[in-house]
């Protein structure tokens, strides 16, 4: 049963081949047995899962038949789940049982999904390797001596290892797409404002978006359809009807104009990944697409801009973690200053503290114009680049990452080298456009991904192209050995 995709599970449950409860039991068993090798789960909610599964079975018995009814999933541990530890993989949220559910959690529960637990991640979503978690690093099932990517590393590892068919993740600078690429999965970052951020603990408010990670584009479509939608509790949520992503999957690609940014194929890119990207392009051409070279001239400025804006917003968003109303409080605080400094100093990991300090500096008196304001201006240049490009093409294609998964510990002491891995993914967050990563083959036995970018609210286009590619390729069906 663990080999089945969400779509296959939906059909099997409808055909009564097994019950949601049986399915959840099997997966909970797999998690118990195999997750110690991966460390992808922070919390497994066994009892609640079985209750939810039974409830889903009851709903199905009474005549309901939604595609996600009884589907087992798990949530990245920054989505608030009521009564369950929501840790953001941080010591500072020790004991934090969220007093409410995130909108994404509510919507997926309403659709009948069964939550098996909360997934490991980089602390407060800051990282590209899932090595900064208070609960220990996550391993890549394709090679457990390597990172799965981050920050949604737990989500990716659990799905890649078939512990669950799909999961939720979040993407601020590539944190869904990059781990998907490093673990042979399909992951989608929706348009900014497409998915509600209510209950999705914030890292960088103007960049964060929640999205699906699964084995196929079809599964992503299923999950996104339930996650997306206007939420009045989120002022940045967009009041736009949700497309029928499933219906969009089967559009033929004739006439699709694809752009390849020339800036993508520079020095930093592993040439074998470049080959794989071009191979995907050839397949898409066979399906009716045309390709042209385009330019995104300001792309190289994206990383510095991102590493000002995201830390700046984070430095403010994380001020609420102060040991006063919830979470970790240091022992015997001597006075208020001591309470703050030790609770935060002891509660936050090194990378989080670094980014808070960078952000604090970038906003501080005398530096605001040179850093924060400058970064926001570069942000507009990047958005303008995309607007211009989408005047000529319907889709932008390129590699998701410049390299495949690196070894655990390799970049842990050199954060800047890890930052440079975000080069392809970051621009989509700055501009707010949707992006998807899909499996495109292997390099040295390690998965690599191809990234698709589309104009605002064209998630359907992304899923469509990925799905069509997945009809004529089988990378996405490969399984890591031992799982």
């Amino acid at each position, binding site marked *: 049963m663990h080999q089945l995709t969400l779509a296959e599970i939906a059909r099997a449950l409808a055909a009564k081949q097994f019950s949601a409860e049986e399915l959840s039991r099997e997966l909970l068993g797999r998690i118990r047995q195999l997750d110690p090798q991966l460390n992808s789960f922070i919390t497994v909610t066994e009892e609640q899962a079985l209750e939810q599964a039974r409830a889903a079975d009851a709903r199905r018995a009474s005549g309901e038949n939604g595609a996600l009814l009884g589907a087992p999933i798990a949530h990245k541990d*920054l*989505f*608030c789940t009521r009564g369950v530890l*929501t840790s*953001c993989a941080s010591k500072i*949220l020790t004991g*934090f049982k*969220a*007093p*409410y559910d*995130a909108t994404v959690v509510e919507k997926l529960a309403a659709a009948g999904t069964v939550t098996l637990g909360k997934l490991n991640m980089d602390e407060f979503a800051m990282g590209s390797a899932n090595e900064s978690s208070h609960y220990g690093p996550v391993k890549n099932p394709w090679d457990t001596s390597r990172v799965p990517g981050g920050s949604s590393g737990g989500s990716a590892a659990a799905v890649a290892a078939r512990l669950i068919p799909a999961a939720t993740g979040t993407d601020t600078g590539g944190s869904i797409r990059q781990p998907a690429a490093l673990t042979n999965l399909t992951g989608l970052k929706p348009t900014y404002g497409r998915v509600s*951020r*209510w*209950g*999705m*603990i*914030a890292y*960088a*408010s*103007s960049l964060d978006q929640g999205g699906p990670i699964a084995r196929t584009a079809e599964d992503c479509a299923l999950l996104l359809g339930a996650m997306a939608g206007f939420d*009045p*509790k*989120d*002022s*940045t949520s967009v009041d736009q009807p949700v497309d029928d992503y499933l219906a969009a999957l089967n559009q033929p690609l004739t006439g699709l104009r694809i752009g390849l940014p020339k800036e993508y194929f520079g020095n930093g890119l592993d040439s074998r990944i470049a080959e794989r990207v071009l191979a995907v392009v050839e397949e898409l051409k066979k399906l009716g697409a045309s390709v042209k070279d385009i330019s995104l001239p300001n792309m190289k400025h994206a990383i510095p801009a991102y590493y000002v804006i995201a830390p*700046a*917003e984070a*430095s*403010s968003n*994380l*001020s*609420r*973690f*102060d040991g*006063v*109303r*919830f979470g970790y409080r240091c022992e015997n605080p001597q006075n*208020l200053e001591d309470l*703050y400094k030790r609770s935060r100093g002891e509660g936050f990991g090194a990378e989080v503290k670094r980014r808070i300090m960078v952000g*604090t500096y970038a*906003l*501080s*008196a005398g530096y*605001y114009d040179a850093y*924060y304001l400058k970064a926001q201006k570069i942000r507009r240049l990047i958005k303008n680049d995309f607007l211009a490009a989408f005047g000529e093409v319907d889709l932008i294609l390129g590699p998701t990452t410049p390299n495949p998964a690196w070894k655990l510990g390799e970049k842990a002491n050199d954060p800047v080298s890890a930052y440079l891995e975000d080069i392809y993914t970051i621009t989509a967050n700055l501009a707010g456009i949707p992006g998807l990563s899909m499996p495109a083959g292997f390099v040295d036995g390690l998965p690599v991904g191809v990234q698709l970018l589309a104009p605002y609210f064209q998630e359907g286009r992304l899923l469509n192209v990925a799905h069509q590619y997945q009809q004529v390729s089988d990378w996405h069906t490969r399984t890591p050995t031992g799982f």
Partner: protein
Amino acid sequence: MQWEAVIGLEIHAQLSTQSKIFSASATSFGAEPNTQASLIDLGMPGTLPVLNAEAVRMAVKFGLAINAELGRTNVFARKNYFYPDLPKGYQTSQMDHPIVGKGYLDITLEDGTVKRVGITRAHLEEDAGKSLHEDFHGMTGIDLNRAGTPLLEIVSEPDLRSAKEAVAYVKAIHALVRYLGICDGNMAEGSLRCDCNVSVRPRGQAEFGTRAEIKNVNSFRFIEKAINHEIQRQIELIEDGGKVVQETRLYDPNKDETRSMRGKEEANDYRYFPCPDLLPVVLEDSFIEQVRGELPELPPQKRERFQSQFGLSAYDASVLSASREMADYFEAVQQVCGDAKLAANWVMGELSSLLNKEGLDIEQSPVSAAQLGGLIQRIQDNTISGKIAKMVFEALANGEGETADAIIEQKGLKQVTDTGAIEAMLDEVLAANAAQVEQYRASDEAKRAKMFGFFVGQAMKASKGKANPGQVNQLLKKKLEG
């Protein structure tokens, strides 16, 4: 050395919305601690703000009332600092693009002159919670009920030149926000708070001196005292060869002095930046016009109209338009009796004395405008004299009757105006005081004038105050002349 004080005020007005500015929690005062603190107010992880339409409306009302430029696109910014009553570790406020820009307010000073005070800006922001420093075994208790209540911060230009001017300005703002129905102005409950920026400079100097800020002064009296004290302190400091330090100070009403808070403030770098969880607020023309249409008649216009329409003096017009409730009451009385001057006299006289004595606001007046108007009508139609009217007024205040008429009837207070009856009564009085009558007739003008009061008194006594005084005077004089 002649010194001049330069004063600017920052007034925080708590807007009287039902719910908070970014959450749907109640804003009512006095609830049990933390029972009006939602997930958003507590700064729980993952929560997000959504802006209260009424707070925007109220801010725009204020902006229109002070003839200000409006921030057609205004932006919320985060003011970052750590304090336990600030749950998110930042206050959502407005920095570069406030909702209300430059405007002005005309205030009437004690000598009757009008001064135009510039207002630099007014912006929306959220209030913090409260710290309770009573001993919880060496700990401080934090109540977040107030966290998230909408505030309008009104910043004046440094146009004020004395403590009295400052108080006049605060009073005018107080009256205006109550007039507009956007704030209840209750300083004791903290609905209106005032920070005073005070500096001094040699008279004639163009440059401003260094200013000190006196935070959170919560009554008109204290504002006057605090500013006066601070002006003195700064003058003495400079004259002794010292320099005024730019700092925050607190006014201690018990010692009547200001104290430096330097230790707490330090150099706080607030790292303002636009709040990424909120989008820019756009004020459309149609919205602004709609709000403009809802503006009540404001104090300056009312003052004018009371003078032109009712012929009241500038002073009377000013007093009667000081608050919307007072003005409405006065006009209601005038409506009933049709005599603005009488209405004015009674409202500013008997009624105000009563309210002052009982410590009541006009909204709590035991005598309604309708009742007072009815009473004045009975004076106008001579049913009762002015003196008896005062008795009826007191009776109304004590709830002894529903209307003036009911009380007049019940107590038999109708004035006697029948000439025959009065003459008969006077004849009796004169007969009973024959000796004084002889003495009167034997005296000169001056002495007669003095004695006349005696006879009037006797007449009023005999008639139990019900004889029409005018007629008594007239008839008595005739009879005494002989």
